[in-house]
């Protein structure tokens, strides 16, 4: 059941197991909702439009997506959808300053585990 108060979380990562893992992490969070996985940012804008207007959407995106320069994607997303928040969930955090500069709310290392990511998602949406 979709509750209006839940924060929709869209996952963008070229590896689909990341989507399935995050789906499970989000499954039992009452205030968060897994709103889909996308292998590339190509359909992200369309996916965002399908979400309820006014939702505090959080996009969890990998830094390394073949064929894309993710900081550029973040910058464009922030320009076109200022209310959408982006949390970069990457293999390492060496690009942290770069992604924060273009408007990401946080950069979390995949090693950090579920709790840290969930905290970052909530902080981004608040």
């Amino acid at each position: 059941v979709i509750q209006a108060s839940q924060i929709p979380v869209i996952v963008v990562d070229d590896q689909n197991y990341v989507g399935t893992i995050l789906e499970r992490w989000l499954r039992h969070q009452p205030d968060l909702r897994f709103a889909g996985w996308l292998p590339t940012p190509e359909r992200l804008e369309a996916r965002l439009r399908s979400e309820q207007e006014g939702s505090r959407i959080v996009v969890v995106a990998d830094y390394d997506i073949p064929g894309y320069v993710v900081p550029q994607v973040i910058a464009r997303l922030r320009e076109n959808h200022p209310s959408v928040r982006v949390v970069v969930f990457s293999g390492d955090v060496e690009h942290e300053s770069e992604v924060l500069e273009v408007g990401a709310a946080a950069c979390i290392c995949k090693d950090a585990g579920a709790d840290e990511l969930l905290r970052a998602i909530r902080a981004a949406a608040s």
Partner: protein
Amino acid sequence: MESPVSASPSDVDIPVLIAPPATLPSRQIQTLAAVRASYLATGELDPSVRPFVAQSWARCRAFDVHPGMLRGQHADAAALRAAQSRGQGLLSAADPILAQVHQVLQGQPHVLALSDEHGLILRVLGDSESLGPTGRAANIFEGASWHERDIGCNGIGSCLEAGEPVVLIGAEHFQEAYVTWTCIGIPLRNRDGAIVGALDFSVPNETVNVHTWGWMLSVSRAIEERLGANAAPRPEVHEQMRRPFHAVRGILEMIARHAAGEGEHAREIDLLGREVAAAEEQFLAGLRVLGEHCTRLEEAGRHKDEFIAALGHELRGPLFALRSCIDLLKRNEGDQETLQWARKVLEHQVTQMRTLVDELLDLARVEHGKMRLNQDDVLLPEAIEQAVQTVRAHAQERHVAIEVSVPRLKLLADRTRLVQILTNLLANAVRYNRDDGRVSVAAAEGPDHIEIRIADTGRGIDREMLPRIFDPFVQGRGERRGGLGIGLALVQRLAHLHGGTVVARSDGEGKGSEFILRLPRSGHSARPAEPTGITGDSTA
């Protein structure tokens, strides 16, 4: 002839030299005038070239024709080996680019020759008919020296002599016919501006247009860029190493002043001075070779660092999956659905890691000549179907359609390795495609080979990246290529091992890419191809 880079005539300042027919006496202005008039009158040249020819008339000159020119007579294997060894930096810079141009021109008469700074030809590529024993360019071969050849149609000799690019419009009697070829000769310079070699591009006049010249200039620039990158001189080291020679010269000059007027001493001192100058030249040549080696080592070191970083990244993914699965299993102990899901994820990750390790080991085996093929007749559609099955799930995730239209052709191949090649190419075509994109697989039969074309509707390949697309461990800048960068390197080496080739083509960003794989047809004995390095191009 289409080109990735074109130039308008105003961009290109090349003196056009019209060579006299070889059978007529040279140094006769009348002959030159007749040839020129014939060219301008017959309309054999592209009309856009004509004003160019006319304007450059003032720069035309006559050539000597070497009377001792004999086909193939002057190849000196030892001199060639020594020159190729000295010119290793030039060859490694030029080989991939020349292979790329050669691939573009397949099916057309053409000859590409690369020489060292003395005009000794180090590398020749061209169509088999032109280079064959009775071909038009039979006298262009590795080991030949330009001054032993018909200078009338020799771009290398002419451009080295002129010190600038030249276009020679040659005309001569050959095999009872009056043939006309155009040779574009371009000197190749290092970062210091010193000429280190020359490039000759010869084609029949009717296939030349003004864009060809711009294209060849861009080809030479690409070689020079690679040369600069490969052999970056270190001015401070260079200068430091020359100091002892400066000192010796200074001492000799001092002695010479003291010995002024004493004929015998002056001659000896002069001789010593020449010997010192020659020793300095040899020393500097050695230093350049050493510099090239150092640069190659540095480059290898950089690649190693890139590789370690990429390997770390590639291993983090599976580790994240393993850790997350264990964590979720702990939290949902006894939950059958979670258990099944975790098993599936773990199996997939183990397969991915095994593939990664296998590819690394395969590449190492091929590079060290330890991979052996078990070649047999293989039905192409079956191999393609097997490869498609492997990438199907990923294609479905991305809504990428894979269209296969392949006749029942038989290849002479190692089935496992063939499927590995095709899987790698298909996986790339899916990975770099747009969502809802298309991958098409087609095949056609040649006289002794089968050509398989895998095209995608993806982002295409950046022109700068294209020549390096088959280099191992190389990652693009900005956007990620993904993976370790060993898939295409392995594809190329496996294709070579089969006696085949693979070429990458792309019209640029957003225009998709195409990989053309050529492997021996069933019934033809496979002969490993020359390891020519990269064969990529960016033309349509």
